[in-house]
């Protein structure tokens, strides 16, 4: 009998969290932001503009169902909160229109800027959002208002999905690849392309040539970081600098970007993958207060 072993090394852990030191019933405004991305969906609940609870889950085949799932997950974790207790919901991300219960939708660019200031503090001026299927370089003012941005949404090269594919090829969990890639004595030449399709065949070649997994990851992340540094230089990097999105948790990519920019990225106060949803929740709070005036 043949047994097929299913390996899903790309699977990053879903997280659901609630601040148990607080009681949401004390808050005047409960706002919710949902960032429906191509790879992950975040639902954030804020109590009077402070992060109270969140769910960070994988986006499924149905955007609407993923939005539902994320909100239900966070409400379940809180326990005694229902949909009716939320005063205002703002949707963002590429799938933002598939959130039927959102009161309003705001572009992910605006939400990421606003959210990044919450996650990193108001000294942040340049934000690199490394998402599932696109990369955005965003420049903001001290309030998180977008001054300029540059993105590539036509090509998934060097994005989260690309890294997921490489994890599967090398059979290494996605949470470990960053650390592993730093365990090389000497930085190898970058792979010649970050294109998901071409990198795949190039990496296969490296495996055949007997390269270690660490070296392959280093070569791949070297290429990914070069690509984003080019993007950043196009908008102009102004300190402080911060990275949001899923890849910001990959130290292998982050350290290499820092090295190339000769600039340290800010340390996040909360999970930087939440930036978009936090921005949306902050806008939701403001919109609610404005509507009451």
């Amino acid at each position: 009998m043949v047994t097929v072993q299913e390996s899903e090394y790309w699977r990053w852990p879903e997280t659901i969290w609630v601040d148990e030191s607080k009681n949401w019933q004390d808050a005047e405004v409960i706002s919710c932001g949902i960032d429906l991305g191509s790879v992950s969906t975040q639902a954030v609940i804020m109590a009077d503009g402070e992060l109270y609870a969140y769910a960070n889950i994988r986006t499924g085949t149905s955007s609407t169902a993923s939005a539902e799932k994320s909100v239900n997950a966070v409400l379940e974790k809180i326990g005694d909160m229902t949909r009716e207790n939320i005063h205002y919901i703002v949707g963002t991300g590429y799938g933002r229109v598939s959130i039927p219960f959102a009161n309003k939708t705001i572009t992910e660019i605006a939400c990421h800027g606003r959210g990044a200031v919450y996650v990193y503090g108001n000294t942040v001026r340049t934000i690199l959002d490394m998402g599932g299927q696109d990369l955005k370089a965003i420049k903001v003012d001290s309030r998180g208002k977008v001054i300029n941005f540059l993105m590539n949404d036509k090509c998934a090269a060097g994005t989260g999905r690309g890294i997921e594919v490489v994890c599967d090829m090398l059979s290494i969990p996605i949470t470990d690849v960053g650390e592993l890639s730093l365990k090389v004595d000497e930085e190898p030449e970058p792979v010649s392309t970050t294109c998901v399709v071409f990198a795949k065949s190039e990496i296969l070649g490296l495996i055949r040539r007997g390269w270690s997994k660490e070296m392959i990851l280093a070569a791949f992340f070297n290429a990914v970081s070069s690509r984003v540094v080019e993007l950043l230089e196009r908008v102009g990097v102004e300190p402080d600098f911060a990275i949001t999105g899923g890849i910001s948790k990959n130290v292998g990519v982050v350290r290499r970007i820092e090295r190339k920019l000769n600039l340290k990225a800010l340390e996040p106060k909360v999970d930087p993958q939440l930036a978009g949803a936090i921005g949306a929740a902050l806008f939701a709070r403001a919109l609610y207060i404005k509507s009451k005036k």
Partner: protein
Amino acid sequence: MGDTITVVLDGKEIKVEAGKTILEIALDNDIYIPNICYHPNISPGPGKKGADRVFRGEMEINGEAEEYEGCGLCIVKINGELRKACITLAENGMEIIINDPSAGEERKENLARILSNHPHVCITCEYRNGCDRVQCMFGYAVEERCCDLFPRCELRYVSEYIGVPDNTSKYVFQNLPVVEEKMYRWNWNLCINCMRCVRGCTEVREANALSFTVVEGNAVAGRTGKSDVESGCKFCGVCVEICPTGVPRDLKRRISNKWRDSIVEKKLPVLKEVLRLEEEFVADVPETAGVLRLYDENMNVVYIKGTENLKEEIMAEIGRAAYFDYEEDEMYTMRESELIQEFLQTHGRMPKLNDEVDDLFDI
């Protein structure tokens, strides 16, 4: 006051002051005639006389001190004859047809010639709007792609307006000199030899640091000496302001001065038909997903928004702007980001009404 004469422009009678060219009259009346070597700050290009040699850095280019012919994009039919609108003075009773088929053909031919010597793959790329232009998904080499001025490149707007001719030959990178001077970097690979910098240099600043020579029938622009100083450059920066592509660029920051600031922004073609933001026009908008844009009276974009229902959304916007246009697009959230990105890069700020979330920051 000059005499008033009457010309017929595309069937419309227009009263104009005598002494102006057809191109000037058309632009004054908000009628667009394609052009690239024309610039309102300088005299028309055709007929200007060159020198017998110019320099691009150390490279010396020897040719004939002949005349520049012009870009040939402003060709129109005047009294049944094809002529350049930029050097034809209006005469009483002249009949001008801008989009005459034979004029259009000639225009296309001339554009094809210009583009075959200038990187242009990005202009024809389907994905030009959503691209950061750092990495090319079609694998075109950097040298074949458009430069970083793409979002506000005049040549691109004119090309999109005329339409890139099918017979445009592929651009082949020639590895022309890239000259670093004290103040400017000259990437001669981007030069379309429109001689705007030459005329800016000689007419605006009267420095004569730039000229052109004619090599085998083709005019080639360059410096009049081997270096900035040797050519008599006065470092005014007019060349940087007036170039329609991106040949001379500031090496450091832009230094403001009266010559430079006198260079006006050219009127670029409006690439899309816009409609008045009134109920009768909105009534014909389909109820599909897409992206809408609102314009003010001066045709500036003031709002970009993606929506599931174009008609409903635009109806709700009546009164907020003067004109609108829209694109149907299933992936409208993406398209919206693309258009905002393009706007930001062209204007350095968000569209005015997109800033409406502004007041939400301080709550």
